[in-house]
């Protein structure tokens, strides 16, 4: 008997080992999201047990014993209706405030976050570090350092998801989406595409390697074979002829781009926009949609002539001009 019980326990333990019940927790927000999750789970279990319990109790207690068994005809009860409207409303309000607080607080990346760029394409993740290293379906990052990913897609909609960090965002063609996180555990974690993107969707997966700062530096040094994104961008800037008009001294037909990044700029249509990644991308792909006053609309579109990676490299170059003195026609 004891033997059987022992065996039963063993197989139960074996089963529990086969079925994980908790995903790894490896970022600053993961634990906080889990707290909301567990509270919601508690609410779900509580009300499910309440409803199932009432149903079973009533099923037995009020089962029909004979055909002349006449029930008491109750129309309803206003106090009860109020109670079971108000209590769920309060619970929902609590969850909403708590969960939204986390969401809003984590919406903006911190200023000191390290930039990394992600390009989704059927069916791989292309990761580009500003220092130059490129990776496919792998992301190497240092622990305890905030990372900001700027993501775009070269074809269809993808979604970038790291369960251990509890972060996810759509990766859209034609625009940039950002996510950020601070990994707090060294290890290897799943990376998935969670927006269906065609035949290879379920193979568009990879690994996130969270490394100690020292290992990360070593890894970065070992990778240093390419030029940095800004250097690549500078080469493209000359090669595509951008420098003809956007000369550093401001003598070309277009504005000098030095020092422009991150500053507000008033457009020809009167609107004011910050010169950010989205605006630079727009200026390269559809220049006539972001015209500056005082400059003629003569810039050709580069749609189809530069790929998403090259746009990002040009952007890195333009960003790197930020420190230089700005001289322009104005």
């Amino acid at each position, binding site marked *: 008997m004891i033997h059987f019980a022992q065996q039963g326990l063993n197989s139960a333990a074996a089963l529990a080992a086969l079925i994980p019940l908790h995903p790894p927790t490896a970022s600053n927000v993961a634990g906080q999201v889990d707290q909301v999750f567990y509270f919601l789970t508690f609410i779900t279990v509580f009300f499910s047990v309440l409803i199932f319990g009432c149903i079973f109790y*009533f099923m037995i207690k009020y089962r029909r014993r004979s055909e002349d068994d006449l029930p008491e005809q109750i129309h309803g009860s206003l106090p009860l209706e109020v109670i079971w409207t108000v209590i769920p409303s309060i619970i929902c309000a609590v969850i909403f405030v708590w969960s939204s607080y986390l969401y809003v607080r984590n919406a903006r990346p911190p200023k000191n976050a390290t930039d990394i760029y992600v390009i989704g394409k059927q069916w791989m993740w292309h990761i580009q570090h500003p220092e130059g290293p490129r990776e496919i379906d792998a992301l190497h990052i240092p622990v305890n350092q905030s990372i900001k990913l700027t993501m775009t897609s070269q074809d269809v909609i993808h979604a970038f998801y790291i369960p251990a960090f509890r972060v996810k965002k759509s990766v859209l063609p034609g625009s940039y989406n950002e996510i950020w996180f601070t990994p707090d555990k060294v290890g290897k974690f799943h990376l998935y595409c969670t927006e269906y993107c065609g035949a290879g969707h379920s193979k568009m997966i990879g690994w996130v390697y969270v490394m100690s700062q020292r290992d990360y530096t070593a890894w970065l040094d070992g990778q240093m074979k390419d030029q940095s994104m800004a250097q690549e961008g500078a080469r493209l800037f000359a090669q595509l002829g951008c420098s003809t008009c956007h000369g550093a001294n401001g003598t070309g037909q277009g504005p000098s781009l030095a020092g422009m990044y991150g500053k507000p700029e008033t457009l020809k249509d009167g609107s004011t926009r910050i010169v950010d990644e989205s605006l630079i991308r727009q200026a390269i792909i559809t220049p006539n949609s972001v015209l500056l006053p005082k400059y003629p609309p003569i810039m050709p579109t580069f749609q189809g002539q530069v790929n998403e990676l090259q746009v990002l490299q040009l952007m890195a170059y333009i960003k790197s001009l930020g420190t230089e003195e700005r001289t322009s026609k104005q």
Partner: protein
Amino acid sequence: MSTVVAELPQAPSESRPNYLTANYGLKSWLLTTDHKRIALLYLVSITFMFAVGGIAAVMMRIQLIQPQGAIVEPETYNKLFSIHGIVMVFFFLVPSIPATLGNFLIPMMIGARDVAFPKLNLLSWYLYITGSLVLLWAILSGGVDTGWTFYPPYSSTYSHTHVVAAGMAIFIAGFSSILTGLNFIVTIHKMRAPGMTWFRMPLFLWSMYATSIIFILGTPVVAITLFLMVLERLFHVGIFDPAVGGDPLLFQHLFWFYSHPAVYIMILPGMGVVSELITAFSKKRVFGYTAIAYSSMAIALLSFLVWGHHMFVTGQSVYTSLIFSVLSFAVAIPSAIKVFNWTATLYKGSISYEAPMLYALGFIGLFTMGGLTGLFLASLSTDVHLNGTYFIVAHFHYIMVGGAVMAFMGGIHYWWPKMTGRLYPDLWARLAAMIIFIGFNLTFFPQFVMGYLGMPRRYAVYPPEFQTLNVMSSAGASILGVGYVIPLIYLIWSFFYGPAAGPNPFGATGLEWKTPSPPPTENFEEIPVVTEEAYNYPGKKAVVGV
């Protein structure tokens, strides 16, 4: 159970023709304008489509037994889940209860001889059939692989499958929904029997009325959205694909503007059915009639204001997400009110457990779980983690299968004697109901865990650590499959050989039970005059409340 036996001796009214025997021949069915015959035409057609979608589901669950995929290539798997979703949502769940039970019962419950526009009603069925045939052609000639959501630019530019045909199939079938909704609204407004005031109507009618509003307001939007997608695919008109100047998120806004209310198209009729079943089998007036009636209308209206909760991770503005989150929590409240009222209806009832009641009780429990897990997805920070994973799949199957399909099965079993004039073996029916309940939970509960662990949906192959949970889910699906086949067998048997049912085998109230089974073509010999509220079951004393 005992009720059925007790009322068996009633003589079947073979003397006068009923709607089934009024005339014979294929033509008399294909050109009928009788709402009851149209309901049966729909019942046969949607059952066939349910089988198509079900076969796709079976193949998916077999595939997922092994992490590397057991039977098909990823391309084929993608077609399977697309077919499953498109067929089950647009060609089974949306028309299921409205087009069968709604068509059959709305005129009977309000004491009318037919719907307001009988010919339009038949046209609805032909539109549905045309859409179905176009879709079946698309499936047989190679399939479609966009998922039921058709997100561009994948659907409009990149997919090499029959996207245009599948999109147009839904476009055509959409008009069937619009016409049905129009018909029901006019019927309920204009054709109620004398004395049938709004607040004497059975709650099923309130839910059908709410559903019809969504049909009319929502369906045109999805039809046009899919049409725009088709335009972009065929003529490269830049609407959604940024490569030709479009906005891919515009599609998602338009699509979910319909497709979230569509969830309520699927569940509201089920709620109506359950209100009928709970009262009939506890011989009791429904608890909080007005609360349930108004909550149906509240759900119908709020359902149009929550679509953005499908897009919390698309990069929409934080403020937009906050508003959609709070509205999504708000839509949970009327659903909670209904659940509490149904449960309270059982209190001090005289409860019996024929098969329809088992389905109704199963509905309440599973819908409660489905609804509560919806809160995880209305809540912003948890949705970021769970969106796009199996948690979503589990959640909406609890609503659509645990809710809508359970209610459909319960409704079919409850009104089957009325529709066919015959009884089915209740023991088998109760056994099937329990097999379905167990199989359902084994199939979909593990998917909640999978989703929390991070397994993405729509994966043809998956990391091996999810295998145990997937095997459990597939095992459950095989039980669920058996549960669905059993009723198909005994109901077909019952249609031809079942014992006569008599007009009211369950001793229920409602005008539909006051006419012979099956009813004559004109439903009632004389239009009834209604003098009492719905669910006026005999009782000890009436405590006045709401």
